[in-house]
């Protein structure tokens, strides 16, 4: 009896050693020498949200969302890219993030956790993050590539140059090149609302399956705005729910899995 219990205990220990991963590091050391501070909210589930925020941890809503998601088994990593590059804490600073670093961080997150990775970003950050994701896909083996499972984009700005009034806007080439399941949240109170279908058509040219939802009564950057309205604060409090809904939608269809 004692021996069988010891055997069971030993087997459980061995199994847990085989599946468990070390706690996420506090800093990601990149090959170019960049040190990226990482806030992480570990969880037992098989998904990591790799969330590129713009506020260096000042946002109550992002932190609360990460904590709430961890309780539901979704792990979140918040790498502080702006601090790593001494960029001002602005949504527009996200466009300065080197895509090569995003690519490397995706690889590190997969290697460290063994879980599937879903990218999360808003506004101007969408472009370097998709460029980084596209670059990572290009160098990943076919066995590893499905580990990058998708992206959740809030009010993405994917123009190659800021669009001028009256002139046809041009998307960055990565928009029509990347193949990645995506879910887009677009604020109703934004001109981007009227261009959402246009963007989805462009993204689908590369084979991406793109779904979207217009969020009522909120502007772009609603969860980081210093002048947020009560409606925007209420929507920001729903971030965990929005993330979970988006994750369900970008789950790969087994009949139509993307390579």
């Amino acid at each position, binding site marked *: 009896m004692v021996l069988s219990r010891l055997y069971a205990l030993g087997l459980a220990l061995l199994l847990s050693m085989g599946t468990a991963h070390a706690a996420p590091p506090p800093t990601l050391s990149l090959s170019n020498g960049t040190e990226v501070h990482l806030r992480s909210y570990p969880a037992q589930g098989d998904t990591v949200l790799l969330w590129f925020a713009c*506020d*260096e941890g*000042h946002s109550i809503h992002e932190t609360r969302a990460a904590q709430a998601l961890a309780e539901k088994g979704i792990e979140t990593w918040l790498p502080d890219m702006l601090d790593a590059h001494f960029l*001002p*804490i*602005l949504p*527009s*600073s996200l466009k300065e993030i080197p895509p090569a670093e995003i690519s490397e961080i995706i690889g590190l997150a997969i290697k460290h956790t063994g879980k599937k990775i879903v990218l999360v970003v808003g506004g101007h950050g969408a472009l370097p993050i998709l460029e980084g994701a596209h670059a990572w896909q290009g160098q990943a083996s076919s066995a590893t590539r499905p580990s990058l499972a998708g992206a959740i984009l809030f009010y993405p700005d994917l*123009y190659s140059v800021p*669009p*001028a*009034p*009256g*002139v*046809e*806007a041009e998307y960055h080439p990565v928009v029509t090149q990347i193949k990645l399941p995506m879910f887009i949240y677009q604020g*109703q*109170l934004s*001109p*981007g*609302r*009227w*261009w959402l279908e246009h963007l989805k058509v462009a993204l689908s040219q590369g084979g991406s399956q793109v779904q979207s939802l217009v969020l009522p009564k909120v*502007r772009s950057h609603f969860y980081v705005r*210093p*002048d947020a309205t009560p409606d925007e604060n209420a929507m920001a409090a729903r971030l965990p729910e929005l993330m979970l809904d988006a994750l369900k939608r970008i789950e790969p269809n087994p009949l139509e899995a993307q390579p």
Partner: protein
Amino acid sequence: MKKLLLGLCCLFFLASAQASELKPWKGGATPPLALQDLKGKTHKLEDYRGKVVMVQFWATWCPPCLKEMPAMQRLDQKMAGKPFVILAVNMGETGKDVSDFVNKMKINFNVLMDEEGNGVGAWKVFVAPSTFLVDPQGNIRYTLQGGAEWDEPEYVKVITGLMPAK
């Protein structure tokens, strides 16, 4: 926190700096515009041939739009009796929201409703506010993205310069 405040200040100044430049139009033909005002009257752009038309796309949720509204009101008053008209196109809000705002701000110029975004699409508007200056022949001559103090002499001079010679 200091870094955050510095960033927000930079954002404000960048927005202000970008806000003031009229750019000569290098695009194609003027898109059609036919929208109803708050009383249900349809305004077509071609109805205003012979006048300089300021077509501005705005929304009540857009801080720079709200900031420039008083200046537009002053411009409209300054141009009284001259061949000039403002068509301020609201982007997708309800009649009640817009009506409440117009009454609160005591706006007298034409406010048109674009509830389905047809004008936004046809005029290729990506940022609020976006403004087009249309000459008396119906051709777009200048655009401006962002807010502006429209009654400042630099803008008045450009607008007056587009008016037909007496």
